[in-house]
């Protein structure tokens, strides 16, 4: 049995998405900028895909720019707001400590260029507080960028409240909605979102495709110079098959949203309850305000990579925020930001369930994680010291 529980990393393409893209690989492969009918057919498909996407997030067609993915969209949104701010002499940005690196590293770049950034705390439950935002706003603030849902711990931010504050103050509001679009309802009008980033491979579309929603009237900065594609905001021949598939995937995901999330949420809670029974473990992030598929735990006395390798042997595919899996010396910045100390953050496990997850699979995961944690603790000097009272349990 192989169980894919890493849907926050990427998802399997849906049948609808694969089938939607095939004609644009083999038949209508023409360049959408060409005049002949094969090219025009591709152009029509591109615009149809744009329409479909707007319907899923309540936007207008002219407000969608296709990109290579979520990271590009994040970069473009933030650099756009920074450029607009600079023109008005405003160089203050507000974000938070648990953003994706696509946002954090772009902000770091801006800080080197003279911008100042306030990072709102995510608190113990992994959720930013609107009062912290209100207190952080100055007359100099040109952008608020807060993610819709966190990629590691799945926590959902108070986007609608943040949007309302930003609209009232006349500050641009961007949200990295890579983990939200196709998983929870997203309405850019209702939430007063000015810019939003999304990535197709997180909602059963293909990799290498994403989009940036930018409210009408926002003059986008161009990251890639060249032809006049995407109304001059993103040069390069459009990835027509990928875009068509992305739209098909999102249409399907948005169509079955309520039903799927209700079902998956029950399984998520079953998984959380099961893993909680493992001694000295703790759930990361708010137990309720999280995306329906996300479970993230810390287990004291074990290291995440070893945990993942042994789970892989048992057929379970998951991920961890340990330093060993991040390729750096520090464990996940998200876990550290919500107050998990290094020792415990190394022993983290993220399980992100698929739409087709079953109760049987969840029970198998619980049993397997328990076995692997117990096994690794069996020869962990950290665990021995905890059990012998030489050091104190944190969890």
């Amino acid at each position, binding site marked *: 049995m192989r169980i894919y529980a890493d849907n926050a990393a990427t998802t399997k393409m849906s049948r609808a998405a694969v089938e939607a893209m095939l004609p644009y690989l083999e038949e209508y492969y023409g360049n959408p900028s060409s005049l002949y009918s094969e090219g025009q057919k591709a152009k029509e498909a591109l615009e149809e895909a744009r329409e479909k996407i707007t319907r899923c997030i309540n936007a207008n067609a002219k407000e969608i720019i296709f990109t290579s993915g979520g990271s590009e969209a994040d970069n473009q949104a933030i650099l756009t707001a920074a450029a607009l701010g600079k023109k008005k002499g405003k160089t203050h940005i507000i974000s938070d400590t648990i953003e994706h690196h696509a946002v954090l590293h772009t902000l770091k770049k801006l800080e080197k260029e003279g911008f100042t950034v306030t990072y709102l705390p995510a608190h113990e439950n992994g959720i930013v507080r609107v009062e912290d935002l209100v207190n952080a706003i100055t007359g100099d603030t040109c952008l608020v960028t807060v993610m819709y849902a966190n990629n590691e711990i799945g926590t959902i931010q108070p986007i609608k409240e943040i949007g309302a504050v930003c609209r009232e103050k006349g500050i641009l509001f961007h949200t990295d909605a890579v983990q939200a679009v196709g998983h929870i309802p997203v309405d850019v009008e209702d939430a007063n979102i000015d810019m939003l980033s999304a990535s197709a491979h997180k909602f059963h579309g293909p990799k290498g495709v994403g989009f940036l929603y930018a409210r009408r009237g926002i003059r986008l900065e161009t990251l890639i110079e060249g032809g006049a594609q995407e109304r001059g905001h993103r040069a390069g021949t459009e990835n027509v098959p990928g875009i068509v598939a992305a739209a098909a995937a999102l249409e399907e995901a948005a169509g079955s949203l309520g039903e799927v999330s209700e079902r998956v949420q029950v399984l998520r809670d079953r998984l959380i309850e099961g893993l909680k029974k493992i001694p000295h473990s703790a759930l990361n992030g708010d137990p309720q305000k999280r995306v329906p598929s996300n479970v993230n735990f810390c287990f004291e006395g074990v290291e995440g990579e070893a945990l993942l390798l042994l789970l892989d*042997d048992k057929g379970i595919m998951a991920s961890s925020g340990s330093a060993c899996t991040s390729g750096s010396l520090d*464990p996940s910045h998200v876990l550290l930001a919500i107050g998990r100390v290094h020792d415990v953050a190394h022993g983290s496990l993220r399980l992100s369930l698929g739409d087709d997850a079953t109760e049987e699979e969840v029970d198998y995961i619980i049993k397997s994680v328990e076995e692997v944690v117990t096994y690794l603790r*069996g020869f*962990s000097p950290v665990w021995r010291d905890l059990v012998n009272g030489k050091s104190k349990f944190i969890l």
Partner: protein
Amino acid sequence: MALYSEKVMDHFRNPRNVGVIEDADGVGEVGNAKCGDIMKMYLKIEDDKIEDVKFETFGCGSAIASSSMATELIKGKPVSEAMELTNKAVAEALDGLPDYKMHCSVLAEEAIKNALDDYYSRHPEKKKEQ
């Protein structure tokens, strides 16, 4: 290509010499939980020979495999030979480690040297003989 060699996976899945020696002649511990790796080595030494060796490790797959391999390389060997163990020898015996995991083999070498230092500090007369 897989992340680790088959040898690493074998020593990770079936680590040799796991455990504790209660009346060890030398104990060494290196690393810290903050960095995500701790290795502890226990040595039983008789007639200047490593009679027995056990380890405990908190760490990633290559840290566990490196500890396991290091114990195999010194078990039954004269103390003088164990003293010569290098991290390179550990990594080579595992058919290599990814570059960013080489520090795991360094920890294994250090853990053993640490345990031997402990042994010598308990038996200063042995140190002079060397």
